[in-house]
Structures are given as C-alpha cells and as structure tokens.
C-alpha cells in the first residue's frame, strides 16, 4: 500500500465519515467504528513503511512544493498518528456507551452531534500530523479548534458554554497570530513548505517576528503558562470523553506544529536562549499546574490542572533536544512522555466520567468508598497515576528518564531538579485522590451502574500508559528511523 492510500485512509475516510454522520445522524457510531478501523490500518501501514524506508513524502496533486502541498510521514508524524489513533479509538469505544446512557431528548441530541464533531476532530489531527505545509497546517488547526470547542460545549451547562466561548475566542485569536506569521514567512521566503523553509534558513528580521507570532499563537493553543487560563474550565466542564480528547490530543496538535517550526523549518533560530526560555515557561507550568491541581476540590478540575503541569514537561523538550550533547535523548524523551501522558490522561478523564456518572458528583472529599463500587475504574486511575508520576515501568518514567539523562549529559542540574520536584508534586495530587478512594467510607454510594465497556476501556488505556515504558525502546527506534535529514541535532546524544 502506498503512502497515498494511507492518506486516503487517515484523512479522507474520517472526513467522509464525518460528513456522512452529519447526513445520517443515527449511524454515527458505526461510521466512527469504520473510520477507526481504517485509521488503524493506515497507521500500521505507515509505521511499517517508515521503519523500512524512512520518511515518506506525498505530493498532493502531483505538483510538489513549493507550488503544491506536500504531505509527509516521518517518525515524529507517525508516532503522533499512533498516539492519536490509540486514544481516538478508545474514546470512540467509550463514547459508544457514554452518550447512550442518557435516555432524554437532550442525550440523544448530544450523541447525534458528538460523532460528526469527533470525526472532524480526528480528521483534523491526522491531517495536521501529516502536513508539511504551514498554511495547510493553519487550516487543520482551525478544523481542530472548531471541533474541540464545539465538543467542549456539548455538555451544554452554564460552565461548559462559558468555558467553550472563552476557548473559542482564545483559539481564534491564536490562529490569527499563527496566520499572520505564515504571511510574514511567505513574504520573506516565498514558500510555505517546512522542508524548503529549512533549506532557506533566512536570517532577516521578519522571520524572527513571524516565529514569535506563531509561537505565541501555538503556545496559547497548547495552554503553556501563562496562556493556560482557558484550559482548566474548558477541559473540566466538557463531557468526559471530550475532556479526554482535549487533554490527550488537542493540545498536542499545536505543540506538534511548534516542534516542526523550531526543530525543522527554523532550526537555525533555535538558540540556547530561546530553548531555555521555552523550557523556563514549561518549568513554571509544571509548578503552577501541580500546585493548583493540589488545591482543586473536584476531580475533573484536578485532572485538567494536571494537564497544564504535564504540558510544562513537554516544553522541557526544547532545552533538552536543542543541545548537541543530548539532542536525541531529549527529543525521544519528550515525545515518549507526550504519548504516555495522552494515554494516562485519557484513562483518567474516562475514569472521572465513570465516577461522575456513578455517584453523581466528582467532589474529591466525598469519594470515600468509591473503590468498592468501581474497583476497575479506580484501578485504572491508579495505574494511570503511575505514569503521570513517572514511576517505572510506565511510559511516563521512560520519558522522564530520557529527559533526565539529557539533562545530565548537558550538566543542567536546575532542570533535573525541576523534573524530579514535579514528579513529587504529581504524586502528591494523585495520592490526594487515592487517599479518599481508599478510605473506607460508610456508604458505597453508587447511584447508577456503569456499562463494563466504559470501565474496561479506561483500564486498558491505563495499562498501556503504565506498561509501555517496557517497550520504550520501540518509539525511540521509530523516531530515529523516520527522523528527517533536516534535523541534524538528532545525531547528538544518541542513546548508546
């Protein structure tokens, strides 16, 4: 199967499924299932191709950059597709029961609109990861943003709508910042192709401003401190599967573009100062996010604030990977952490959804005795917490290990302390939840039964998150096999 067919499966199939599920609202679940299978096949094929032959390029329309749009699958892109695929499929499975639980007119309405929006979101993610064209990335970014906002609004309550409104305004402004940057880049370089930009490496001032604008916009969409304010309310008030998508995947879309910009197209501008500055924001996010997660009274808000902190970890990738001493260690560490966080966060939000539905609230201090009613869910929560804290052999551990190793190789002790301290804070806030869950309360307090599929989906994802450190060498291999030639820093700090 050629790369082009994989694109048909990864982009056109979910897009068509989205349109069809809008046209035939009752078939949404089945269409999503079909799209999930197609995406699975496409991703598997791409992984195989990348491992065998390195990065793959497809010139849409046969024109080729700069006139046409190039799509590209390299190790990074395929890894992101895989992460999105796993989490997307899990959320789809979960949602097949979640929205059906509510038998009201409103519940049916939600289910009808969840599927097209969800499929658009998945289309946008796949298209985003495959794109090598910064204007095309803008279009995918908008699609991603719209789908995310409307999914967040699906809960329909007062909080959810206000949060979604804020999210939309923030997201739209951020997109325009990005687009303005694209305009400046095009005016300077005459191309919007990532690889051609990398080859040009212009030194004029305009790209600096462009890069600053794009970074600002994308960092806002990624909810990097101090532009994180919109995230907790939006992620916490959305329906559980949507929260999972938002935290696990949506913020990573814009983060991925940041990686592409700084490490590929404009890598000449990746000076130590820039890397340290981005890393410092990440460190601040770890602190702020963790401490405010500690102070939350509600489970979903706690998880949402933890996302802010975990995003901070992702930004530690910049100072780590930008160094010639540790490049690949930091790079693979950050990206493995990204995958691990996605799975762990999805599992956590799905668990929170189960709890919310089962006991009718998610106030942490009143969760006593929940373990008895929902042992599988709480076990899933515990397992995903392992990964969030970074205990071995979880994916979170593998990622942090590599980041720490990179820090040691660079001799930057301040960052190492930050990572370790962040882990302790993470341990503190997850233990806060587990403590209440383990306390033998007087009442089991389970109001509504939870369909087993919803509990087991969360558990399987949690097992993936907690166990995939055991296979951490594999994504590292994938990232190396598919590393584009344009990323010379990856040669540095290769794992022995």
């Amino acid at each position: 199967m050629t790369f082009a067919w994989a694109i048909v499966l990864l982009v056109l199939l979910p897009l068509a499924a989205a349109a069809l599920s809008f046209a035939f609202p009752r078939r949404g679940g089945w269409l999503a299932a079909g799209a999930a299978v197609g995406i699975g096949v496409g991703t598997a094929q791409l992984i195989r191709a990348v491992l065998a032959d390195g990065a793959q390029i497809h010139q849409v329309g046969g024109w080729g950059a700069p006139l046409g749009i190039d799509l590209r699958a390299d190790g990074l892109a395929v890894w992101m597709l895989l992460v999105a695929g796993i989490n997307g499929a899990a959320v789809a499975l979960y949602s097949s029961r979640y929205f059906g639980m509510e038998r009201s007119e409103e519940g049916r309405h939600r289910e009808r609109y969840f599927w097209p929006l969800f499929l658009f979101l998945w289309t946008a993610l796949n298209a985003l990861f495959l794109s090598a064209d910064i204007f095309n990335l803008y279009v995918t970014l908008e699609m991603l943003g719209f789908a995310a906002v409307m999914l967040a609004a699906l809960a329909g309550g007062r909080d959810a709508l206000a949060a979604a409104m804020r999210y939309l305004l923030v997201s739209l402004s951020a997109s325009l910042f990005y687009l303005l940057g694209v305009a400046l880049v095009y005016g300077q370089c005459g191309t919007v192709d990532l690889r051609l930009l990398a080859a040009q490496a212009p030194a004029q001032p305009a790209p600096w401003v462009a890069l600053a604008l794009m970074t600002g916009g994308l960092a806002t969409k990624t909810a990097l401190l101090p532009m994180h304010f919109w995230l907790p309310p939006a992620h916490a008030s959305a329906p559980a599967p949507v929260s999972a998508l938002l935290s696990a995947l949506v913020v990573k879309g814009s983060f991925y573009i940041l990686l592409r910009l700084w490490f590929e197209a404009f890598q000449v501008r990746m000076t130590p100062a820039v890397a340290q500055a981005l890393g410092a924001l990440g460190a601040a996010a770890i602190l702020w996010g963790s401490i405010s997660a500690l102070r939350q009274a509600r489970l979903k808000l706690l998880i949402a604030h933890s996302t802010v902190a975990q995003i901070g970890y992702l930004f530690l990738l910049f100072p780590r990977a930008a160094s010639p001493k540790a490049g690949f260690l930091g790079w693979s560490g950050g990206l493995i952490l990204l995958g691990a966080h996605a799975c762990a966060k999805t599992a956590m939000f799905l668990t929170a959804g189960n709890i919310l539905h089962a006991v009718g609230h998610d106030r942490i201090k009143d969760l006593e005795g929940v373990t008895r009613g929902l042992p599988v869910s709480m076990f899933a929560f515990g397992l995903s917490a392992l990964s969030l804290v970074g205990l071995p052999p979880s994916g979170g551990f593998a990622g942090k290990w590599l980041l720490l190793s990179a820090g040691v190789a660079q001799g930057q002790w301040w960052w190492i302390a930050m990572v370790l301290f962040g882990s302790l804070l993470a341990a503190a806030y997850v233990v806060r939840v587990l403590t209440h869950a383990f306390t033998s309360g007087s009442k089991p307090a389970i109001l509504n039964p939870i369909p087993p599929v919803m509990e087991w989906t969360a558990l399987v994802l949690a097992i993936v998150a907690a166990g995939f450190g055991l296979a951490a060498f594999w994504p590292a291999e994938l990232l190396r096999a598919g590393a584009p030639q344009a990323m010379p820093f990856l040669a540095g700090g290769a794992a022995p």
Partner: protein
Amino acid sequence: MPDADYRLYLMASAAIFTIGFYSMLTQAHLLRRIMAFNVMGCGVFLLFITLAARAPGPVPDPVPHAMVLTGIVVSVCATGLALALAGRVQTVTGKTELEPGEDAGGRSGAAHHGSSA
C-alpha cells in the same frame, strides 16, 4: 491606475491587526469581541494581499489570494459559530459577557456541578 504605495498598506495591516487584538483583550461584550476577531483577520488578509501585489511580474501572486479566500471563508464560519455560541451563552447565563472571574481558572464549578454527565 498606478501601483499603490505598499509600505502604507503594510503599516495599515499592522495597525488593523493591532486594533483588533487590542479590542479583543479589552472589550467585554461578546459581539464586540467577535467583531474584533474579524478586524484582526482583516489585518492579516491585508498583509497577504499586499505581499501578493508586490510580487514581481505583471499579475499579482495568486497563491496568497487563494489563501485569503480560504481565510475569509474560515473566518465567516468562525463568526457564525461564535455568534451561535454567544447566543447560547446568553440564553443560559443571561449575560452577553464572560465573567472575568473565570479567567483565574479553577474557580468555576467549585460549588457548582457542571452538567456534564
């Protein structure tokens, strides 16, 4: 019709974008913020089109034109969506502004259980 003075247009695009962004930050009414977004967008489009007009050759560069067309459609979609959402926000909360308190993040729903279920 002689060529326009492009420097003027470039500066105007920067000004329009800045005005839009400033209002996005300072205005509270949702309708104004949505308009502010459109004004910002207009600034970006003006930059694109000016750059296209500066391209060497007899005809302007069509690529930015196509990009702007895409952008305009996206922004009208965004406007429609945002207005619909703003309408719902007003129906549910009775307000046409977002509460500034929510900016802090984390306050929302401390006492109030979101209707997500």
